């Protein structure tokens, strides 16, 4: 889903990030490793004792060339590390919302011509079709950028290439782990160079000192380091080409539909893309009913997309929380492979790019610009930095999702809350700049009361509705 639009309740438009839902098993708060009860917390120590790399710079392979891989490659190449970026499909048009916050445009120097649209208005529609306009508090220079993933990914990769990284068109197969701290990792991949015909690859190997797994939700690198499972959502999207008079309405406006019919734990959306709109929905717990939810979303937006032709159907899994293990020896996971997608809005592009950059920075620092070998403690520096910087954001969105996506009354209350200007301002500030900004305490208390009031009203009405059914 495109942009993350954070509404006052902190709901952000998700970029395909699914709402996770707890599965239907009863709770059993098992720990990750049921084997031993003793747990050791890791401490971060810089690896001063790492041996120097003889006569050549440190070699790092990045598996996956999306935002995470591209950002990591750029930082590594800039830091003097020999970088190899392995991507299996260089023109891959990812099924993604494509929304990037303002801070990403600044931090990653995204040129303006990559941004197809600047969304400045949003509409949230409740289960009973109450529509609320959001975006009045945005300043003139603020917007949510909509990009095409293939364009953005290509840009980041080209930037890395221009700084000295090697981009390899290949499919990563497996990885041989070294037996000690100094031997290299051996990556096996199928190299596509057109010599064997379309789709056929030449098996090759690559020896590197460290690996960054940036290969997305179905990460093979994660599998090879036994990183563990995560719960995931399915996001399903149809790209619809609507008549140009209807397209005017979506010029700079995105819509978000909430309701039990549209999704039991997420929302349905209509996002404008370069010359068409993307209509979609997602779910964690009711994946089998995704088609039903998609029909409901199309029905809710019926008047506005009438006469449209479906030009593409896409679906993708979206992680709901980080994998149990994100770093092992000299392999680290970033982006969707690590599971850095927020709840509630499903934002993932920015966090993927930022985590790629942070991991690369940790490697550059730990290796003193490529002169020393790195070890696990250097990679854990990146984990600590990322967790510290973004944990509040993730937690707030998690709380918002738990409170406001539970039930239809909660969603009604949510949409009501979003009509409030203070909420809109807070949401946008935290979305666009990725900082959880503490607002005016008095306004916060008023907001808390209003929220509770809305929730109570909506729940009371729902109980009355249940009585009517009898």
């Amino acid at each position, binding site marked *: 889903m495109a942009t993350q639009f954070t509404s006052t309740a902190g709901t952000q438009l998700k970029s395909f990030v699914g709402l996770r839902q707890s599965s239907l098993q009863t709770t059993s708060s098992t720990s990750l490793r049921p084997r031993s009860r003793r747990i050791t917390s890791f401490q971060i120590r810089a690896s001063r004792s790492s041996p120097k790399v003889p006569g050549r710079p440190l070699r790092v392979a990045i598996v996956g060339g999306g935002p995470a891989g591209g950002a990591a490659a750029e930082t590594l190449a800039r830091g003097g590390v020999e970088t190899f970026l392995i991507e299996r499909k260089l023109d891959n048009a990812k099924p993604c919302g494509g929304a990037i916050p303002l801070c990403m445009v600044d931090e990653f120097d995204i040129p303006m011509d990559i941004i197809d649209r600047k969304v400045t208005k949003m509409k949230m529609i409740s289960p009973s079709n109450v529509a609320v306009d959001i975006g009045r508090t945005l300043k003139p220079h603020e917007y949510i950028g909509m990009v095409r993933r293939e364009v953005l990914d290509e840009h980041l990769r080209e930037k890395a290439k221009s700084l000295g990284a090697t981009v390899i068109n290949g499919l990563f197969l497996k990885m041989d782990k070294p037996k000690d701290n100094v031997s290299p990792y051996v990556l096996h991949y199928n190299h596509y160079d057109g010599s064997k015909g379309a789709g056929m690859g030449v098996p090759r190997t690559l020896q590197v000192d460290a690996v960054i797994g940036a290969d997305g939700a179905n990460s093979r690198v994660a599998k090879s380091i036994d990183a563990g499972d995560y719960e995931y959502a399915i996001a399903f999207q149809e790209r619809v080409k609507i008549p140009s008079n209807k397209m005017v309405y979506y010029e700079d406006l995105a819509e978000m539909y909430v309701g039990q019919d549209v999704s039991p734990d997420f929302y349905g959306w209509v996002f404008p893309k370069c010359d068409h709109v993307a209509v979609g929905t997602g779910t964690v717990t009711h994946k089998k009913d995704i088609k039903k939810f998609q029909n409901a979303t199309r029905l809710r937006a019926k*008047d506005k997309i009438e006469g449209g032709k479906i030009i593409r159907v896409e679906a993708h899994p979206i992680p709901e929380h980080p994998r149990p293990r994100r770093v092992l020896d000299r392999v680290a996971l970033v982006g969707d492979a690590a599971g850095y997608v927020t709840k509630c809005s499903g934002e993932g592009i920015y966090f993927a790019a930022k985590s790629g950059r942070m991991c690369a920075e940790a490697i550059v620092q730990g290796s003193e610009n490529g002169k020393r070998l790195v070890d696990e403690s250097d990679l854990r520096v990146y984990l600590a930095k990322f967790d510290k910087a973004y944990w509040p954001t993730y937690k707030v969105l998690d709380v918002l999702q738990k409170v406001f996506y539970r039930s*239809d009354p909660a969603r009604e209350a949510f949409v009501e809350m979003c009509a409030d200007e203070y909420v809109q301002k807070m949401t946008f500030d935290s979305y666009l700049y990725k900082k959880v900004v503490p607002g005016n305490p008095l306004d916060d208390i008023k907001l808390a009361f209003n929220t509770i*009031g*809305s929730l109570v009203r909506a729940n009371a009405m729902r109980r009355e509705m249940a009585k009517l059914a009898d």
Partner: protein
Amino acid sequence: MSTTVVFSSSLSFLFLNTTTPKSYRCLTFKPYHVGTFPLLTRSHFPFLASSVDNVTVIDEMETVEKAEVLVSNGSAFTVPKFRDARWIAGTWDLEQFKKGENTDWDAVIDAEVRRRKWLKDHLESSSNDDPVVFRSSIIPWWPWVKRFHLPEAELLNGRAAMIGIFMAYLVECLTGIGLVDQMNNFFCKTLMFVTVVGVLLIRKNEDIQNLKDLSNEITMYDKQWQAAWKEDDRK
């Protein structure tokens, strides 16, 4: 004490009296499985033409036919729109709810409840020409309190009072300390606090499990994030 009862019971509405299925409240934390992976296979998506993690491009002709059927489906069988004499231009006409001089807010609440029930059963598309502008916040706070909160507060206060009188009598029988002296004692004050909280939070037998699930849910996400930092010794 009655104000805390009032306030807490309204808060409890939010969490404990929802009728959402248990699955919504139970966040499970999948135990670590070596080797399993949530790979999506075709069995997950029988309706997609090819594998899920690739973009599926459906043939242009096929989609045109399908799309036209899908998009115009709404008009093929018309979904009846919600109609009511008092629902005008996307909101309830409060003039029609007058009971003498004042507005009959109970009737407004009833009408809105009926509309939402109708929408649940007959899905309607949201339309720009005919938007819904009704906000439940136009109904002042006191009809809500009178109708929903007070009966439950009465029930809970009644329960608390009954338990209180009985316990005061029992303690006096056992120890001879009268009610005023009991209130001065710290242990008795604690017991009273526990009783009040218990009456507020646990109203049905399922509430005990609900509370456990809630506390799990609140901490689940934190545990998932901390997982990378807590590992058994692998080496």
